[in-house]
């Protein structure tokens, strides 16, 4: 196959990726967009097998190893993607992103070993960039995975002098990077990889639970840029196009997410350098709360004219999406106006809750976005908050010290009555106390969201 044809096919794969991202931006075309992307990736992968790289011949060397490794990857990746529960989606995306970053770093290292002294300075710089960013993306993604899977604390991990340690690690990484460029050699490169892995861990540790999605999105953009840099070293236009596309769109997406959450991107990124150890939140609160029975809740709902359901991640964890839909249908049949108030970051990632409710066949037109639903709370008789906490926490407006300060919230406090379905008084993902729980117009219904909802539904049927 001529180089021209090979490049042309590569370009067509690049066009597929552009169309894929374009398609993914609108609900109607999203699925088709993803499939176009998959087609592009398949074309790109198949065509390498039929083109002899410079100084090589066909068939590819190590063909058995290559095909075997692809088979292993498919055997691991496909079942993981098929079986994952929708609630665990963010972890999986983080993990997939991490392995992509790891792959890019490995590719750079191998190419570096291969080129040896023949590498020119530009290639070495691109290699160094890929190794640093790829390793940061890899180890950072692993930490976000651990945080989301709740295998480690979801709160910001800050230790005394932490920012100096982080700054020192960054300085050392950059120093070694210069060393690699000047001195060339395998050992400096491996030290660079190790330092970068460490920096990735330190970079993500101080990020609080609520900011994790932004970090995943950012690392995603990073990985894209490493792919572009690898494309430069490997002389592959396709990798440059694909990597740059992901890098650029990922950056925009990260900024949009940060805006939806009312965070400054800068603050999130450099949180590692500015985070101060948090004071332990006040003594265990033993202020009185008003807890109610499922019957109380049913009565309240029965005489309401308008009800807004605010679903949170707890709803999904309890697998209560279907029960909540049953409740909504029942209320609608009684002539009550029902809407779901969806916070942009309800769940663990922007748009996550929409996916979870769509899975339970909740009709699309009942899902109201935050800007839509907020002005209507004043006319709402009952707001039911199910397994959500941070997205309705007034601390985001009132207490400048809170990690979620500045995040737009669903203003359920304006509703006439508020019902919280909670497992316990434990604070939400961001680990902040919610004043609303102690509000006199709030009623708490403790227990598993699904069990509680089932009881409310049957109580409502008996009324």
């Amino acid at each position, binding site marked *: 196959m001529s180089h021209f044809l090979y490049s042309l096919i590569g370009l067509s794969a690049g066009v597929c990726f552009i169309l894929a991202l374009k398609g*993914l931006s609108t609900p109607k075309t999203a699925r088709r967009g993803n499939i176009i992307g998959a087609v592009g990736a398949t074309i790109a992968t198949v065509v390498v097998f039929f083109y002899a790289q410079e100084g090589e011949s066909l068939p590819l060397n190590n063909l058995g190893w290559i095909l075997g490794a692809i088979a292993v*990857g498919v055997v691991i*990746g496909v079942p993981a993607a098929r079986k994952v529960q929708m609630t665990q989606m963010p972890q999986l995306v983080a993990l997939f992103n991490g392995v992509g970053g790891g792959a890019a770093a*490995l590719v750079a290292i191998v190419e570096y070993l291969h080129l040896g002294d023949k590498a020119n300075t530009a290639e070495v710089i691109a290699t160094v960039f890929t190794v640093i960013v790829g390793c940061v993306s890899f180890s950072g993604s692993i930490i976000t995975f651990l945080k989301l899977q709740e295998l480690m604390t979801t709160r910001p991990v800050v230790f005394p002098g932490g920012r100096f340690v982080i700054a020192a690690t960054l300085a050392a990484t950059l120093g070694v990077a210069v060393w690699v460029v000047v001195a060339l050699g395998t050992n400096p490169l491996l030290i660079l990889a190790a330092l970068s892995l460490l920096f990735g861990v330190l970079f993500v540790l101080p990020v609080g639970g609520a900011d994790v999605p932004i970090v995943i999105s950012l690392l995603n953009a990073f990985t894209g840029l490493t792919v572009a840099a690898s494309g430069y070293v490997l002389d592959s*236009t396709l990798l440059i196009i694909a990597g740059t596309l992901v890098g650029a769109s990922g950056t925009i*997406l990260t900024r949009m*997410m940060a805006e939806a959450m009312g965070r400054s991107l800068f603050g999130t990124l450099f949180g590692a350098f500015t985070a101060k150890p948090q004071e332990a939140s006040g003594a265990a609160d033993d202020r009185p709360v008003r807890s109610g029975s499922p019957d109380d809740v049913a009565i309240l709902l029965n005489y309401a004219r308008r009800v807004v359901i605010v679903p949170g991640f707890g709803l999904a964890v309890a697998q209560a999406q279907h029960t909540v839909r049953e409740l909504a249908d029942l209320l609608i049949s009684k002539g009550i106006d029902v809407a779901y108030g969806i916070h942009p970051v309800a769940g663990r990632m922007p748009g996550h809750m929409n996916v979870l409710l769509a899975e339970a066949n909740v009709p699309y037109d009942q899902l109201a976005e935050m800007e839509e639903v907020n002005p209507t709370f004043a006319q709402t008789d009952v707001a039911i908050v199910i397994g959500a906490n941070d997205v309705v926490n007034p601390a985001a407006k009132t207490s400048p010290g809170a990690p979620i300060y500045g995040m737009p919230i669903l203003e359920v406090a304006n509703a006439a009555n508020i019902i919280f379905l909670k497992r316990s008084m434990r604070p939400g993902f961001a680990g902040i106390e919610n004043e609303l729980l102690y509000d006199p117009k709030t009623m708490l219904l403790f227990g598993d969201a699904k069990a509680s909802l089932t009881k409310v539904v049957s109580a409502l049927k008996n009324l």
Partner: protein
Amino acid sequence: MEPIAIISIFVLAVFVGFEVVSKVSSTLHTPLMSGANAIHGVILVGAIIVADHSRTNLELGLAVAAIILATINMVGGFVVTDRMLEMFKPKKGGENK
């Protein structure tokens, strides 16, 4: 390749990347992130190229690891994005109000 050609491709791709996602609703943030994530799995192409180059066991071992990781990223990414988007498909029938 000419450096200026590479820089041109890079700069143009940056603007295309900015443009295509500039107006996406927050509903689609997660699938878009996941889809973009799958696209950078195309580093698989790079991993195959370096495996082809590999002369020593060390190089081959690292290249094989890179292929496995890249395949997981690419194939898993597209499959999981499709699963998410499948749920957004328009529902038909009279049940919905």
